[in-house]
């Protein structure tokens, strides 16, 4: 499920771009100086011509290097939520509104290249910035720079640090598996040790979005073309409340981790599960959307929005 954030995009203007020669550029300048001195000494017309041609090419390449970044539009793309400890993939959409393609556009973080893109004329390209995230909640993409050496490698142009409002939802890291617990106040309780959802086939019903693909009656689909979902029960209503209060010996983060693990297990088992957190109650349900709602509640628990 893609989570997106406010589209704050950046277009690189003249004032945001800098340029300096690379060490290869300095070497080139040295060779040009030698050529010039030799041309002067020998009064060699072609030597002068070659010298000035090379210098002029370096100057023109400056314009091309600048052009490679100037007016490039950077916008946030999608970012799939991840669990803490994983690598979040921030998508960046680079839009080239110019009539010339842009080559070798490099995205740098802390001076190191993290992504590279070529963007055709009047087109967009998407790049992924992998970012290790350790804490739950909304994590923003750290500032990055755009840079390029194109076309000749004699010059290096880079942008000021670009901050765009690009956030990724980070779920709490799931804890190690732990048996379900329920609180004494629970009224509707499933049997302990009973596998939720049961093994017994109890019939089919019409497919609803969110049903696990493993329960779709594919044979019936092949016959009739209608999507139906097989239902399993075993006589019990597979319903569970995942409760904050059931875990008194853990601290907040650990509780959230355990609850996250239970959400995953409940979803995997095809159960109906609800979530109770201090001040938040999410009614029992199942399916990917429900799983996301629960994990998001855990991710953002007690964090300011």
């Amino acid at each position, binding site marked *: 499920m893609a989570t997106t*954030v406010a589209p704050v995009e950046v277009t690189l203007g003249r004032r945001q771009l800098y340029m300096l020669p690379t060490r290869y550029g300095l070497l*080139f300048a040295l*060779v040009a100086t030698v050529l010039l*001195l030799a041309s002067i000494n020998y009064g060699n017309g*072609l030597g002068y011509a070659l010298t000035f041609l090379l210098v002029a090419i370096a100057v023109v390449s400056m314009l091309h290097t600048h052009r490679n970044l100037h007016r490039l539009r950077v916008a946030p793309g999608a970012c799939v939520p991840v669990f803490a400890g994983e690598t979040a993939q921030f998508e960046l959409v680079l839009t080239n509104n110019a009539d010339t393609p842009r080559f070798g556009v490099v995205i740098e973080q802390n001076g190191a290249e993290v992504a590279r893109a070529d963007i055709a004329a009047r*087109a*967009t390209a998407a790049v992924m910035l992998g970012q290790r995230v350790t804490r739950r909640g909304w994590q923003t993409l750290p500032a990055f720079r755009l840079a390029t050496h194109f076309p*000749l490698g004699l010059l290096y142009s880079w942008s000021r640090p670009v901050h765009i409002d690009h956030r990724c939802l980070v779920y709490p890291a799931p804890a190690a598996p732990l048996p379900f617990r329920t609180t004494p106040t629970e009224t509707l309780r499933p049997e302990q040790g009973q596998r939720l959802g049961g093994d017994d086939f109890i019939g089919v019903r019409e497919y609803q979005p969110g049903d696990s693909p493993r329960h779709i009656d594919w044979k019936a689909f092949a016959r009739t073309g209608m999507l139906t979902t097989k239902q399993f029960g075993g006589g019990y209503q597979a319903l569970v409340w995942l409760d904050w209060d059931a875990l008194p010996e853990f601290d907040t983060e650990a509780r959230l981790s355990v609850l996250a693990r239970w959400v995953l297990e409940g979803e995997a088992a095809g159960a109906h599960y609800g979530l109770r957190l201090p001040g938040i109650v999410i009614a029992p349900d199942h399916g990917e959307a429900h799983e996301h709602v629960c994990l998001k509640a855990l991710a953002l628990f007690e964090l300011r929005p």
Partner: protein
Amino acid sequence: MNPAPDREAFYWLYLTAVCAVLPAVAQLPLWLVAAFSLSLGWRFASDHRGWRRPGRALRTLLLIAIVIAVYRQYGSVLGREPGVALLVGLLGLKFLEIRTLRDYLLSVFLFYLVLLGAYLQEQALWLGAWTLLTVSISLVAMIHVVQPRGLATRAKLKHAALLVAKALPLMLVAYLLFPRIQGTLWGLPADAHAGLTGLSEIMRPGSINSLSESTAPAFRVTFEGAMPPLRDLYWRSLVLTKTDGHSWSRPRAFAAADESFEGLGEPVRYTVTLESSNKPWMPVLDLPAEIPPEGRARNGYTLEFRMAMHERQTYTLNSYPRYRTPPLEPEERAANLQLPEETSPRVRALAERWRHESTEPLAVARAALAHFRQENFVYTLKPPLLGADPVDEFLFDTRRGFCEHYTAAFVTLMRAAGVPARIVNGYQGGEVNAAGNYLIVRQSDAHAWAEIWVPGDGWVRVDPTNAVAPERIEIGSDALRRLAERGVVPGSLAPAAVLKAIELSGLDRVFLHTRLYWDLANLSWYRWVVGYSKQRQERFLTGLGFGEISWEKLLTALGVGGLAILLAYLVWQWRPRPERDPVQAQYLRFCRKLARTGLVRAAHEGPLDFARRASGTRADLAPTIGDITRLYLKLRYGPGELSGERQVLKRAVAAFRV
């Protein structure tokens, strides 16, 4: 940047290397060219066949071997030729160790120095074009290592060509305005000039003739006024007075810087661009009224440079086609009557006879010319060789020869008849290049003629060859060669028939025109590249209205000119362009398609309202209209987008049919 050059990068480097070394190959020893090629081959084999590359020890050994070999070849490792040789050798070795981007780019840059090495030898027009090619290829090599993927070869070539094309105006400004200096920064090595041929100081009629066959340009002339007719264009280089019967030479004494004459009529002003000749002689039109600053006077109104000229030179001066020279000093008179004791009696007798008929010098000369015309004398470029007494043999036996034979015989006869006479060596005529409005004088236009001293008039030019082959003077040596090729004996045809005989066929005419334009291109190249010196720069810029030239002024102009071009590029690059959002462009295309059916979106109408109205009118299109509008709204106003969604919109609009 890409840390290490890949295989394709090496292909471009090989190409750069070959292009850069090729113009210098002629001046490099064969073993060095072989070593360079072997190094490239070794690198190729190691990349493609897995051959072992030499280790550091072997590379050091090879390096020492190359330095020693260059030293043995040239006796030095400094100076121009050993320098270029060493550079090529070391660049070859470098191929064996290139691993990093730094090594790679350094090699590319150093090949520019190899190009310069070739220029020091020769600065021909084709080298200019070759330079553009080589530099473009080196740019492709650089583009490739910076951006190894994503660009097709064509795109790389195009980008390199674009860089060069945009650089040319900047280069031109810098080239024309960069202050040129007189002289050198450090001493030129002794081998800075190579040897060439020209006229000879000593004339030996009947020995050999090497000049007449060479069509290489000797010099080119532009006239400030109208060009005098070809037959009046006598370019004097040397005046020969001393003879031993076989050869003619200049007097040893450094004579007569105070020779003067009285110019008659209007002077002709012209500029000569002289090819390098390794000789100091300055061909000038009869008779030079001034001495250009770089020259000095020699005997007989000839001029020469202060030293032998190894490079092309340009000088401007006035000449008077009509003149009167002052009376002869006694010793000068004696020098111009000098004949060897052993001059044959037959020759003396012939001269004696004419002197008896008239003591008037001009009459004696006319008698001699009549003799050439009436007797069976033939003009030919391939005369028989002459023996012990060339003048006698020519006059009485062979009677076949070209200008040198006729002039030597004529001057001998004149002196024998008591008329002071001398030989003038130089060039006659030339070829008019209408394309560039100038005259090309070739080595084959080399000519010898006589001057006799007439009381009252002074030195008077007499061209004895004229008596035999008037075409030689009227139509020039080139046409004469054509006559010879067609088997026509000069002097044997009526003038009209001669003209017909020398007329060019269609193909020849095209060839001639091409040649003339090519010559013009070369002359322009010379003027603006090889000969663009401090003086030439001053003349050019003063002509543009720069006024007094100083290097501060030039550098300021260079800065202003360069910045102006740069600014023009920037204005073009930064020009406001309509912000055409690709998504919106697709939606507008969709609206245009609907407009064709009469469904025009009103200015106030939002996309949703328009979609509703359009779907109402065209129920058949309603689902597609809805899909496109939804996708458009999501992409344009919605939060974020998935990569590929734009392609979906584009395809949907393209597939939309009304």
